[in-house]
């Protein structure tokens, strides 16, 4: 078990091929589709474990700038992956780009989520919420979704018409996003130990998510759904019942464990 945990935290070696021919495309995902797509695009697919672990630095502690020529990134979403996990992969891909390109988070690229056949419309909406956009528009947001069953030529055409974007506009959008701001205020409120303020901010969070509280999962640490359930339970108890000191203490102790770190996904 310990061995497995060690393996999981090991950094991912940068593919040798990238050192010789800096790739224009990056494919993240496992399975035959990801491998085939990577092969067609002349690059290597990064498995999810390696993706989350991040690239391994070289002997001097630096990173080779092998993603300087990167133009597009494809995230091949497996059937059992939640939207929250897909957004975490999106963040991890940006971590790779940030380390392996001199432009860092200002490297411009087109990002495509390749969704499985069983993905619902709600899945796409959840991704849009995570990216703080009303809808995923390839031309306006630099992101696109593509069904795995779609023709490869269509996917390649889509990429050529997409607007390449860096991470700054996404960060700026997230900084003014109502849902994120409500969660930020809640995080601040629980540290101030004022039950009334906590209750008010909890109300604000639930209002921000309006009848779509399941989207709180998108802002939770993995396992996102479990943490989302705990957060929803805590919030609902706060707004419907009498606020007790115990609930406030629970919030103070647990909120950081439930919600994604401040610096991840640019959560305020």
């Amino acid at each position, binding site marked *: 078990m310990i061995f497995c945990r060690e393996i999981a935290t090991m950094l991912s070696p940068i593919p040798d091929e990238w050192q*010789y021919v800096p790739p224009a495309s990056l494919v993240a995902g496992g399975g035959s589709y990801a491998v085939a797509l990577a092969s067609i695009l002349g690059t290597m697919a990064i498995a999810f474990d390696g993706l989350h672990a991040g690239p391994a630095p070289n002997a001097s502690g630096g990173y080779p700038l092998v993603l300087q020529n990167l133009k597009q990134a494809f995230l091949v979403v497996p059937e059992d992956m939640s939207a929250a996990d897909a957004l975490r992969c999106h963040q991890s891909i940006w971590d790779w780009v940030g380390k392996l390109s001199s*432009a860092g988070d200002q490297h411009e690229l087109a990002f495509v989520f390749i969704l499985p056949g069983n993905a619902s419309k709600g899945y796409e909406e959840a991704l849009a919420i995570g990216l703080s956009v009303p809808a995923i528009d390839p031309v306006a947001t630099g992101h696109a979704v593509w069904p795995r069953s779609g023709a490869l030529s269509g996917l390649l055409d889509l990429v050529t018409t997409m607007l390449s974007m860096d991470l700054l506009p996404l960060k700026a959008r997230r900084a003014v996003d109502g849902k994120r701001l409500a969660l930020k205020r809640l995080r601040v409120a629980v540290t101030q130990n004022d039950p009334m303020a906590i209750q008010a901010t909890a109300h604000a969070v639930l209002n921000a998510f309006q009848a779509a509280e399941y989207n709180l999962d998108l802002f939770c640490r993995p396992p996102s759904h479990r943490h989302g359930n705990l957060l929803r339970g805590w919030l609902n108890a706060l707004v419907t019942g009498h606020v007790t000191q115990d609930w406030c203490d629970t919030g103070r102790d647990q909120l950081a464990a439930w919600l994604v770190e401040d610096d991840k996904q640019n959560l305020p």
Partner: protein
Amino acid sequence: MKPIRILIVEDDPTVLTVLDASYRKIFGAMGYHPTIKQTSTVEEARRLARAARETPYDFVSLDVNLGDSTLTGLDVLVTLKRFHSAWMVALLTGVESDMTVDKTMGEARGEDLRKKLRRDAYASFPAERLLVVEKPSSGIETGDAQRLLVNRLRQIALVYEEVGRLRYVFRPIDVASLERVSAPKGKKVKRTYIETTALHWQIRFNCGEIRTLPDMAGFRTLHYLLSRDRNQSVTPEEALANEPKSELSKGTSAVLGVDPLATYFEAQGIKWQDLASEEQDRLIRAALSLKLTRYIQLREFQDDADISPAEAKELDAIRKELGALADTAESVYLRMAAQAKELDEATTRLTTGEMCEAGLHIEGGNYDRLGSDRRGLDSPAAQLFRARMKRVRDCLRENGFADFARHIEDCIQSTGARWSYNPPEGVEWTT
């Protein structure tokens, strides 16, 4: 007239006109020849900032609120910093003087906003090269507001001039230290120290940021070159002697007496020796496909010491891809190069006297030692040295030190096999 590249980012057309005219007038009066580029959107400003990676703007006048719903001038500032595309930035803000902020949000909140803006701005760009300047309030009469604005722009230009003095990037410094005086052998004496000084060369980038270049070998060569007396020249041999041994080019181990072409093709079942020379050539080209053209091109660049790091990597990658055919490609290249050389020499064989007249033969150049067939060509050492210099320049540019790279290009002259560093008279060595 000193050239100055200015970028003005402003969404208000009236203010833009005033800024353009004022900067031209003010900088013109200070002896500058301004080249001004204008833009009014965040998107375009960020695009220009990216594009200016190799030729950074000397001065950027940047408005904070550019009418974009999500991005502001601060995001442009972040891009300018990331791509090292501006030497100095004046951030013009309306928040400082906008009374409506205080009226609608209260004075305390207005003050918080102003402080936050400054804090964010200084976190986004080196403070010593950033000026946060308030635009005159909209409550002031137009004529007065314009006069006030022009006055502030004049102050900005003066600061630019002052800070610009620190822009030169390297200087000699005396480093003082205490050194223990060694006691005579066999005698036990009280510890004595003596003050010693040593001359060090400090490479100073962008006013205060002192950095080490990643390409240490190139840096060392450059450092050595710069530390010499400006009237002295450094031969490539001297420069190479100063290099760490690991940086010297690694020789390729060729197996003598074996024809790699024959070995390769016979392993494929082709009777190589029976084929005519033209047939062999055709077969080689077919086997190497399109890679050969690029390989030959890159090898020519390499032989001319004109290969960039990216091209060198590409060459390595092609070699790796070719595998067993890499030696074949090299033989083809060498054969073609030899033919080209023969042709060249047949048409352009010159005597030493003729070469002197044409300025191709440099007295004291080391090509005589390498044989008469090397006349008119740089020695391998000179070629290596030139390639290394190019690498240093590329490295500087890639790391955002375009000024320094340009300075090297301008001030390090080559005359055949000899190199010298000749800074212009006007260079100020900061202390």
